[in-house]
């Protein structure tokens, strides 16, 4: 009986590692894909949660629970990073109200914005794929110079 449930725990740990790997991959692709900066920040926050789950599962699998402290510290860092990113979004200024006077759809209009050269010159940061942070900094510079 004990062996049976021990086997169940073994199988559950391996299934959990597989599913967590898949979850991690999906979330990383979401960080890269975007399409907007808050989406990426949210995916990064989610990535921290998945990493903590990894640490806990590995702790069960190997019995090596020292990394639990690191999990708590990682949660703290993730929380502070999300807060700092939220402040950064606010400090970056209004994004879409500058063009039309009211907030517009982000998800469905990004592709159109990317194709239009004039609007793309106004707001390059959101639509340019993997390197989200650097063009955003460039955009801040542009906006301040306008």
């Amino acid at each position: 009986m004990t062996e049976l449930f021990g086997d169940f725990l073994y199988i559950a740990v391996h299934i959990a590692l597989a599913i967590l790997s898949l979850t991690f991959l999906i979330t990383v692709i979401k960080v890269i894909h975007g399409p907007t900066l808050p989406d990426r920040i949210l995916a990064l926050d989610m990535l921290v949660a998945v990493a903590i789950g990894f640490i806990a599962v590995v702790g069960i699998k190997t019995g090596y629970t020292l990394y639990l402290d690191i999990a708590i510290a990682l949660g703290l860092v993730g929380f502070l990073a999300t807060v700092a990113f939220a402040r950064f979004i606010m400090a970056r200024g209004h994004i879409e109200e500058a063009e039309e006077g009211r907030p517009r759809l982000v998800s469905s209009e990004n592709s159109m914005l990317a194709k239009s050269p004039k609007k793309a010159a106004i707001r390059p940061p959101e639509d340019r794929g993997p390197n989200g942070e650097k063009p955003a900094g460039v955009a801040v510079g542009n906006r301040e110079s306008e």
Partner: protein
Amino acid sequence: MDAIVSLVAGLLILAGTFFAFVAAVGLWRFPDIYSRMHAASKAGTLGSGLVLLALAVHSGDTPTVTRALAGIAFFLLTAPISAHLLAKAAYVVGYGLAKSSVLDEMDESKKTD
């Protein structure tokens, strides 16, 4: 006793990873940032919290249990705060709601100030 601990820990692990996976799927399936936030902050926190609880159940010694429970309490405290801050920042800056959303209650307050 050992068998019960293994069974409960295994079930908690599977439930936690299921919720984490559902949260990652929700990041892709929901239409706008505000509804994605529901998936990431609620299901994601529940997923990692359940796996930490499984670790607390599995390892019987007091320091590990205490740290795991402290971690769960910490995540339950910080996840709503960070999600709320991010949502507020995104809304103030002007990221719109999805086309299918029926009510924007903060729209009025935005016009007055």
